[in-house]
């Protein structure tokens, strides 16, 4: 990683607490503009907390969070969405009782540029043709894979510069996981930076440019994805090789 470059988003020495629980300890990481960065780690390692901290849903006690050089700690989620950060939540969490179209409209909730919204709608529907077929259907009646696609499409509707994804592979069949990750690459190629939090290290590293490994709230490894894939400790602990 080149330190002279300004990162799109940078966490420096961040500590986050949930009541008495010290969830993140001195976490520093960079999300590079135009790249895919992944954050790996097992259960309860603090992956989701990192996302929540970025989005202002959990408060960082120490350290700074900078987005495009601006300190964003303490901003509301709405302010961050307006600045171009968007999230695909864990477990998809689409609006199950609203139609596919209404879900997508919620994604562009803060936008007022009608033409731009229309343009983006066409873009995401071409990215996820399945959603176009089902645009009138209620979210809850979609299959798991389609729900994941809807959650991604919804997040893209705010035309984000940075897309945060929380465990996109969770609960999906392998073939669907492959599909979802292919689409993540496509989204990235269209110019959106992606930060993906995953347990499925193999899959995440196969598409990412940079990777971080989180263990009980601490960053224990940080490198390019290519290096991580051959890292000995990484291979033993997360890639399932002995």
């Amino acid at each position, binding site marked *: 990683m080149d330190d002279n470059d300004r990162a799109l988003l940078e966490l420096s020495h961040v500590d986050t607490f949930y009541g008495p629980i010290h*969830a993140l300890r001195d976490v520093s990481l960079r999300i590079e503009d135009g790249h895919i960065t992944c954050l790996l780690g097992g*259960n*309860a*390692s*603090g*992956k*989701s*907390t990192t996302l*929540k901290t970025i*989005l202002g*849903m959990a408060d960082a006690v120490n350290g700074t969070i900078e987005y495009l050089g601006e300190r964003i700690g303490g901003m*509301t*989620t*709405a302010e961050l*969405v*307006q600045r171009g950060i968007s*999230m695909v*939540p*864990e*477990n*998809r*969490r*689409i*609006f*199950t*009782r*609203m139609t596919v179209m*209404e879900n997508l*409209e*919620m*994604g562009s*909730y*803060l936008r007022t540029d009608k033409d731009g919204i229309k343009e983006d709608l066409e873009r995401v529907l071409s990215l996820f043709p399945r959603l176009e077929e089902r645009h009138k*259907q*209620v979210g*809850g*009646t*979609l*299959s*798991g*894979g*389609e*729900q994941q696609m809807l959650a991604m499409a*919804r997040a893209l509707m*705010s035309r984000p510069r940075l897309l945060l994804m929380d465990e996109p592979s969770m*609960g*999906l*069949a392998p*073939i*669907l996981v492959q599909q979802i990750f292919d689409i993540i690459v496509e989204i990235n190629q269209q110019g959106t930076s992606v930060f993906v939090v995953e347990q499925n290290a193999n899959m995440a590293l196969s598409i990412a440019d940079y990777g971080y490994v989180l263990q009980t709230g601490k960053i224990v490894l940080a490198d390019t994805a290519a290096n991580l894939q051959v890292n000995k400790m990484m291979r033993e602990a997360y890639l399932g090789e002995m």
Partner: protein
Amino acid sequence: MIHVRDLSQASKLRLALKIGLFVGIAMQYLIFVGIIETFHDRFLIKDVISIGEIIMLLVFAGSGYLSVWALKKALNPVHEEVEVPVRRPWAVGSGALSGLVVGAFIALLVIVNSVIEVRDVFVSISPDLIQIVTFGRGETLAGLVIPMALSTILAAIAGTLYIVRADVRRTVVLSVVWVTFAALISDLIRVSLSRPGFPVFLSRIFTSSNGLTVVGTVTVVAVVVAWIVFGPAVQEKWKARKSTMSPARQRNLRYGQWSLLLLLLLLLPLIVGVFPSEVLNNIGIFIIMGFGLNIVVGMAGLLDLGYVAFFAVGAYSMAVLTTLQPDIGGFELTFWAALPIVIIITGIAGLLVGAPVLRMRGDYLAIVTLGFGEIARFLALSDWLSPFIGGAQGIIKIPKIAIGATVLRGPQVLYFLFLAAGAVAYFISWRLKDSRTGRAWMAMREDEKVAEAMGVNTVYYKLLAFGIGAMIASLSGALFAAKLGTIYPHSFSVLVSITVLSLLIVGGIGSLPGVIVGAFVLVGLPELLREFGEFRLLMYGALLITMMILRPEGILPSVERARELRKEDRAQDEVYSLDEPTAAPATPSGD
């Protein structure tokens, strides 16, 4: 692969017995709480059959219908392409057996009552009641046999009905439903038909002073039969004709329909007369509140059980501002001058209730708002506030509403105010529903956290929902105070909150026409059925349970609710999504 599924004869019999026992116990309950006797005073068909009797007969028939339904369920435990039918002997047999059990319960009651004095414990078991349940035979052998025989035969017929052609079944069921309904509102029909301009004999032919006449009954049945036989064809033809019309004509037709409806609404109080207009106004109070609560609960998903508080604040602030009672208020404003102030005060009250509960959801919110509702009533009752709002004595001398120099008197005139207020509340709800605000509420109702992540300011929208909901309730409260001229704290009990919420559920939560239907069913019907009074809560409970089982989306559901609750859609969808098992609904979780 077709499985041959069948049950042993013993288990089929057991099933019928079980249903018979259930229904028999339910029947005993109706007898013991006095429903049968209370409703015996009113005729369904003059001098032929009373409402109490028809309830019993319907329960008899119901047991047969239920037992065959249960048998069919047992034969088809999972949905498969080939349905195992209930064969005719079993339909008749199961029905008859369960009916026999229900009848036996009545016979048992008669026997036990002849040996020991049941009335010592259960006051409802009077000699009159024994006469009713034995169909006038009393404690004789015939009195034991007749209920059992009637029950067996009716249940067997009802059981057979389950397996006959659908249109035959519909004809019978709809006839019974509509005859009962017509009988329940026969007073209303009679009043409406005996207006000046109608020939006198019309009202005499169809209705009597107590229930329908035979002619009236036959007419209702004839209409139902005609509808079933010719209805579909007429509808088809109408649709076909409509589709060939030019868009302009279709639009005109729609305008025509709307103006016809408007005309009907405007003429309604003249058509139905004074007493029914009064009933309409009472329904209006609840329709307006229903629209308001629908915003809070139906759109924003905030379960508010203390909605009566806003109704009370509206009524009380109107009363204080306008009353001529010397020791209270002293403002003596007119209704129209006070109205904007009342709306603002209540809106602020809505925000005050909303603010502390912002962080609460679901059950917690319900409990806390329930508390707020009671607090409002206790404050109204308190000695502490009585110098300002009258305490237990309430507030009297609230002047009638006047427009210019004309004082609006009588329910037939006041009706128009309720109509106008209802229209305003309807319009606000309707505009909000598809607006950006409505969307934000909907998203918040679905998943607050995610809505926030989309950029929805949940604090603002929650307060907005409480505020608008409160303001609409204040309209209702203000009209309520001005209509009665006096208000007392006891008018604002938790029962009001429950009624409004129930009417939303019965009508179909989130649906605006549903609010109207729900209010007519839950407020209008009891007003027309004086006997209902003491069983009101029982009826509410029974109705709510029945609705939840048979039609959870409500009588007139909103499109979204129907969508999410309709099982066929889901079943159909499973066929499409073969790629993987449908994922479990997302549950929020974190590291």
